[in-house]
Structures are given as C-alpha cells and as structure tokens.
C-alpha cells in the first residue's frame, strides 16, 4: 500500500517517494491514451504513467528510475491510501 498525504507519496513504512504536482494543472480527462499503462500530456509533451494497472512495486520502480516521473492516480486504486 502506498500512502498519499498532502500530495506526497510515501511507502507504507513512511519512506518518501515523490510529490504529486502538475505545474500545468492538467486534468486526467485532457490526457491522450497511448496504451493501458501510459498517456500523453499535451501540456508538457511528456508521457504520464497510468498507475491503474501497475502493481505497487512497479509504481516504486518508475519513481526510482525517474524521480520526476508524472503519474496519474485514481483514488479508487486499492494500492493507494489517500489521507488528508
């Protein structure tokens, strides 16, 4: 389980992974789907990783490979716990 607190993603044991921040404030509906795991963002012409079909380990691996990776995360994803 990954924890999102104050727009920051942590592992269950509290290790910081990344901050969710989009400077263009793009809505998920504005992203163009490339395949079931990736989307294209017109705002910054970059790839956004769709976490819906990723395991927790895959999400962590993406962040480890690129700390600035852009993620799309659903609050319905059972691998994420959103806290206020």
């Amino acid at each position, binding site marked *: 389980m990954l924890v*999102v607190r104050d*727009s920051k993603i942590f592992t269950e044991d509290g290790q910081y992974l990344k*901050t*969710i*921040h*989009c400077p263009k404030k*793009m*809505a*998920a509906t504005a*992203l163009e789907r490339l*395949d*079931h795991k990736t989307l294209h*963002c017109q705002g910054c012409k970059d790839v*956004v990783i769709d976490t*819906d*079909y*990723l*395991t927790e380990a895959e999400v962590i691996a993406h962040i480890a490979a690129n700390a600035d990776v*852009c*993620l*799309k*995360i*659903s*609050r*319905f*994803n059972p691998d994420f716990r959103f806290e206020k």
Partner: protein
Amino acid sequence: MTHIDDVQTPMRAVKTVYNLTKLNRAIKSGAKYEVHLVKNSPKLFEKQMLLRNTATGEIIEVPSRLHATRQFGITEYTEAEWELLHQFKRYARERKNTVVWGAYIIPKDVVVGERLQISDPLEDIFLQEFWDTKIYAFEIEATWDGERLVLDRESLRDFVVVG
C-alpha cells in the same frame, strides 16, 4: 488542548425517500423537501460482450476483445478463439426500474448556507472509470440556499490526480 469549537461537527444528512407514505409523513412533521425525477447519466452505460470459446464452450463477459487487467496485462480475445454471442450495454447504477422519482427530506431547522450530506443522490453523477467499471457518486454534499439544495459538484472532481 483542542477546544470543542475547533472540532467540526459532522454534516447533517438529507434523507432520500421513494414513496408517498414516507414523503407525506415527512411533510406532516414539518420537514422541508424537494421532489425530483430520477436522472440517469448517459456516461454510466458500460459496454459489454458475451463471448464463447470455440474450443471449450466457456462463456465470458468482457468489456472488449482487447482487455487489460492488472493481473494479466493485456489479454486479447481473438475472433478465431472467441465467438461473439451478444453485445450490450449495462447501466452502472442498480435501481429498481419502477423507481422514477424520489424526494430529499431536509432537516426542518436547516439554516441558509448549511452544508448537508446527500447519501443517496437522485441524480446519477459519473465520477470516473476504473478497471473498466464506471463509478458514480454514491453521495454528494449540498448547500441549502434558503429555497433549495445546491449540489456541490466541484467536490466530486478530485478523484484522479496527475503529477
């Protein structure tokens, strides 16, 4: 030390009723109310296919021939292996099809500007699609403006985050 005034009280509830007996009982008690027709959303229809395996006869229901799951990734149900039996749409919110109207029962002492919780909205509001399932708002907050409930649709926008 936390003062009692610092602790938010939970929002009061707006109850939804679907029959005249309950509605008239509420009216008699002095409660405020709003009667609405049930409003469906075209965004909540899910496409589905019934496919039959040509070798084993097994029948499955899938949203499309190219179907992604976390467990198996992309799975393709080819026309050679899976014949199409039926293609159909299913509405994401289950309701008796005899239910066409309902009423919100609002606390009689509601004050202008008070935020209330509607736990059974009469309008079906699409939130997002997740794992091929269309998700609708199970509840919504509303504000009493003195005459009617104003649904807070903005509060439903934040179900997907990007960044």
